[in-house]
């Protein structure tokens, strides 16, 4: 990140009166010292790391950079309030220059139980933009030039991203509306199927891109909307890659060949790179689990990063950890608990087998309950520390931590 950070102390929604204008939640501290882990570096390596972060444009392809409630039982209640509390202060020392904020995504349940509806999506976006409009450090990034400006001025370029196009229902024009309102990256579908294609969480993973999904891909190409295959199944991913005239990306994934978690198979990853696309290595709350590192951490992250670099080439890999400023695993657990009492209407489907984990955790390995080393957006730069430790050059690191993403945006955005 360019030095000269322009953060002047702004806190989310401080132009309003808590309680009177919005329901207050006691939020957990953004970064918890007990959970911090930095890849240890020698003094010289430390100097190299500092210089690297200052000199290069650091692009985080997938985060939810907001504070979450201290009492995670309240997690499902916060979306009902319709406001996410961006962690402005934490972000100001994160080292990030660009962040793709995927907002409430699957938890965009502002107006409905299952979220992903048009009204809730607009509400989420509008509210976040109103917050951002009242301060000066985070800028709403809509063009590549905004990124260069942010870097020069010590600001953070904030990109509004949606993990799925479900809110568009069957209306292509809604993509135009979202683009106009400031969204610059959109997923095809979430883990569930929608009208565009098949999600990775379904029992039947054979569902590909629908005809309507194809219409949407064409429209997104015309608009200059970046397409994300973050939660699609592999077939939908492949068909999207084939159908898009522009290169696309998977903002948060990993190599299914060696990892459990949120992943794509080799075929998808190779197709992505062959079409000039990008994969952001992800992980979310449980991280990526491998045989060598059966508990998700910066180590398993690095292993997956390396695998993809070897498979796809250094020009086609980036980073999108999909973390947040709160207890991510407890957040999942809270939703799981509430789904049994809040009337979500989910049932155990006969024949739908839970995909067993391939890498059981040995009894002597500690699972801390979070992805150690890539636990929140401030640990993004830890990936650079890992890469230094593992012999990558500055040029290679610059590509993975930002330049590859910039190249993609330069090609896709208008």
């Amino acid at each position, binding site marked *: 990140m360019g030095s000269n950070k322009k953060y002047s102390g702004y806190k989310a929604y401080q*132009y*309003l*009166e808590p309680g009177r*204008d*919005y329901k207050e939640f006691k939020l957990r501290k953004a970064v918890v010292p007990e959970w911090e882990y930095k890849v240890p570096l020698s003094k010289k390596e430390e100097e190299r790391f500092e210089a690297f972060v200052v000199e290069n444009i650091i692009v985080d392809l997938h985060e939810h950079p907001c504070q979450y409630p201290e009492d995670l039982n309240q997690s499902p209640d916060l979306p009902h309030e*319709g406001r996410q509390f961006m962690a402005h202060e934490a972000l100001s020392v994160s080292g990030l220059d660009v962040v793709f904020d995927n907002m409430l995504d699957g938890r965009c349940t502002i107006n409905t139980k299952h979220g992903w509806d*048009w*009204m809730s999506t*607009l*509400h989420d*976006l*509008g*509210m*976040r*933009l*109103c*917050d*951002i*409009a*009242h301060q000066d450090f985070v800028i709403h990034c*809509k063009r590549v030039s905004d990124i260069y400006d942010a870097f020069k001025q010590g600001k953070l370029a904030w990109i509004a991203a949606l993990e799925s196009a479900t809110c568009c229902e069957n209306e*292509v*024009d*809604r993509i*135009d*509306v*979202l*683009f*106009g*309102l*400031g969204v610059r990256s959109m997923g095809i579908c979430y883990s569930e199927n929608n009208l565009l294609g098949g999600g990775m969480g379904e029992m039947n993973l054979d569902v590909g891109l629908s005809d309507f999904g194809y219409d949407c891909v064409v*429209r997104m190409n*015309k*608009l*200059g909307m970046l397409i994300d295959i973050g939660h699609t199944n592999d077939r939908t991913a492949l068909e999207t890659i084939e159908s898009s005239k522009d290169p696309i990306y998977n903002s948060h994934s990993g190599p299914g060949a060696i990892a459990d978690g949120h992943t794509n198979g080799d075929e998808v990853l190779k197709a992505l790179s062959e079409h000039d696309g990008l994969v952001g290595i992800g992980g979310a709350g449980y991280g990526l689990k491998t045989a060598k590192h059966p508990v998700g951490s910066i180590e398993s992250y690095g292993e997956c990063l390396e695998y993809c670099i070897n498979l796809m080439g250094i020009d086609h890999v980036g980073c999108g950890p999909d973390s947040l400023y709160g207890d991510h695993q407890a957040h999942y657990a809270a939703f799981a608990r509430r789904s049994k009492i809040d009337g979500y209407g989910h049932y155990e489907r006969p024949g739908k087998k839970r995909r067993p984990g391939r890498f059981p955790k040995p009894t002597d390995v500690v699972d801390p309950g979070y992805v150690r080393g890539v636990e929140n957006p401030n640990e993004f730069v830890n990936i650079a520390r890992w890469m230094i430790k593992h012999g990558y050059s500055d040029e290679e690191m610059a590509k993975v931590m930002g330049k590859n993403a910039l190249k993609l945006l330069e090609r896709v955005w*208008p």
Partner: protein
Amino acid sequence: MGGNKKYAGYQSYSYLEPGIDYKVFKFRDPLAWFWLYPLSKTEEERVEEIIEKNILIDLHVHPNPGPDDISQELDWQREGRKFIAYDALARSGLDGMIDWLGPCHAITKRGWKWHELIDTLGMGLCDVEHQDFVIQCKNVEDIVEAHETGRIAWIPAIESATHIENEVNRLEILYGLGIRSVGICFSESNQLGTGLAEMRDAGLTDFGYDCVARMNKVGLLIDVSHSSDLTAMDTIELSKDPILASHVGTRTLTPTSRMFPDDVLVALAERGGVLGIEAPPNSTVTGKNPIHGLESFMEHVEYCIDLMGVEYVGVGSDSYYFDHVGEYLEGQKLRKTAGMGYAKRPDQGIKRLPNTNMDPESLRRLKYVKGLENPTEATQNVARWMVHHGYSDQEIAKVIGLNALQLFKKVW
């Protein structure tokens, strides 16, 4: 407007395929009735310099072309895409313009719905995002930058807060999505207050007050152009920030409910607000100048400068790039044929001030308001008229934009 205009020929939605991605309508020439107030050679040179040096802002425009065949209007609205007449705007000299979204009846019969508004706003923004001459204006710096780089700052606004129903938070969402000014209500009442056309004036509601308070906190500029007298007064008194009457005039010269009485105008100015004088067909006709045009309009401007002070008057032409009279006449027809549910309310013994003269014959005779008919000519013609009538450079600069800019600085 600064020279070096950056318009490079972009047409709305040219990143899409007509017919396939959007329904095509044959538009009327946006400048079919373009007319500039005649000046002598020296006056011409002077006005050119004034326009070049100063920031020009029209407080109320609708910079969209419309169908040649006015009977297609409803179908065109339903398409949900407003086009912008970029080439016409490039000839306007404007640096800033407030573009007021209204009913946006893309989907429902009476319009003014939340989802229609967001669709219309988003679609317009998408168009603007694909070119570089019109820039989305979010703050005062954007207007200054537009002036310095030969572009136009486009300020999205809504004529009435009807779309928010009874939800205060929606004001913030609108601000986030780009809206910078909100009218309290239209000529019909809504949950915030009484509209100017209503029989009984009950002023600002309690919910309306909650909205005024929230708009002050968020930094939204409040507009009362279509509010009743009491609603306007309540809003002026209760708003911590100065407010806007983007497109009105004086009832003293035009005795209709559409105009404000002197006490409202004086109160508006006393609290630092600005009045934009308007020119929709027949709105600002006067006894002295019964055919609506630049002369009757400038009578309003002069009266209000005298009453309120030159710092509080501006231009809010409410001009169109398509047939305004035609739209009124079509609207009158639709009220009887499009099943919108308008019923004739019997006289309940309360005397209503007449609204703007909408007699079809009068409108047909007028045809259009010469000199103030479209955004390209309106503000320029005000400057030209004022040059010819001996106003100073400073006075002209204030009326054609500086007053507006100062108001934005105080509120945004």
